[in-house]
């Protein structure tokens, strides 16, 4: 719940404030309305908390964060499993 997970925006959603984001190899709908003022486009990276993008980050930061999360082991795997099971939309 407390982990911020980087994801890459692959498409803007058909509903306002939503986007399809690739996270840990899985494509999920993510709410991006809280970072929209910065402009969100496919190819952008965002930091996601419980299904919401809270910050835009650059690709280098995304890579560092993913590397760190992978070293965390169980806690990150649990979060990814929860995310993969999420049907939020």
């Amino acid at each position: 719940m407390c982990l911020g997970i980087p994801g890459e925006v692959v498409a803007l959603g058909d509903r306002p404030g939503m986007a399809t984001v690739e996270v840990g190899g899985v494509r999920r709908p993510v709410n991006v309305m809280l970072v929209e003022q910065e402009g969100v486009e496919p190819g952008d990276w965002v930091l996601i908390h419980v299904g919401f993008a809270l910050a835009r980050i650059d690709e280098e930061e995304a890579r560092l964060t993913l590397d760190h999360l992978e070293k965390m082991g169980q806690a990150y795997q649990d979060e990814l499993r929860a995310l993969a099971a999420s049907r939020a939309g």
Partner: protein
Amino acid sequence: MRDRPAPPDAPTPATEGGPVAVTSAMRFVDEFRDRDTARAVAARIAELCEPGRRYGFMEICGGHTHTIYKHGIEDLLPEAVDLVHGPGCPVCVIPMGRVDDAIWIAEQEGVILTSFGDLLRVPGSRGSFLEAKARGCDIRMVYSPLDSLRIARENPDRRVVFMAIGFETTAPSTAVTVLRAAAEGISNFSVLCNHVSIIPALRAILAASDLRVDGFIGPGHVSTVIGCEPYRFIAERHGRPFVVAGFEPLDILQSIQMLLLQLHEGRSEVENQYTRVVSWEGNRKAVRAIEEVMEPRATFEWRGLGWIPDSALQLRKEYAAFDAERAWEVPAARVADPRACQCGEVLRGVIKPWQCRVFGTACTPEAPIGTCMVSSEGACAAYYNFGRFSRPRAAAARRG
């Protein structure tokens, strides 16, 4: 939990300092993405420590606590630097009474209670969500509050209650979900709001007479939302340097260096080590979403810290239709922690996890007595899982 290493041995006197410490420090340095920088920062930290002076730095966020133990940061620090674990683990600060209230709601006719998986094992006075589920309550784990909203849409004849927890990092997502429920007119969705605010908790910590903290390692994710400005009173009025930090081991080391440099130069300021993600002004849109839907509660109980004024959020009157506490008269009983549990002292930084009388014996991640052992970001679970015992061993050797 299957991958968890064997529990650490009870602290035993061991060879202190010298070659042992150096070996372990080198081993942990290998885990850093930039070993040379890590070594250089560790060396600079040692230089900045003034002879005879001791330093206590509180890392507020549970994510930082996790990184510190996982990567053995303490083993890279001079003896004079002590890391104190703060109250920034939202699962850890939930009092038993709130867990009881949620289970009471789950027991009502036609209710589906939803919550983050982190809460599943948190003990209430009549057991955890997991045990309530086994008794037949419909309790479902979700990744996002939006999952709860979907469950409400799909179950129009049931009442779906989301047990919301977290600091300012998760409060915006609950707020936006409530706004969406209102916009869509979803009337069978409500929130049992347990969101807490970091600033009032820090005020309470700063007011404590037993405070042994010379500076703060600030929470990275919370600051993504609230920015850096709200911490200014800590630096200016309380004279404690405050550095917002990222979550990699090198981020933590650099933040400690920044804190020591401020103290060395006689400064006390808010600095941002995590500029890669955190801006000074934070995410204004997220803050506005919280403010639109929620307002401060007069007071809220924190495990270990007691009742703190204005420290938590409740739904505003305008969103009363989505407030589970207005829909039901929850018992709201105040439940004392089990006598053996010392989570309170751990959360205030008064004792270390391994100093708790039930740590690793009666209280383990599989059968937790206290919340600090439940969450993977709790100080006790972090100590237990990663078995970082070099400091306690050294201390035991000194005492012995």
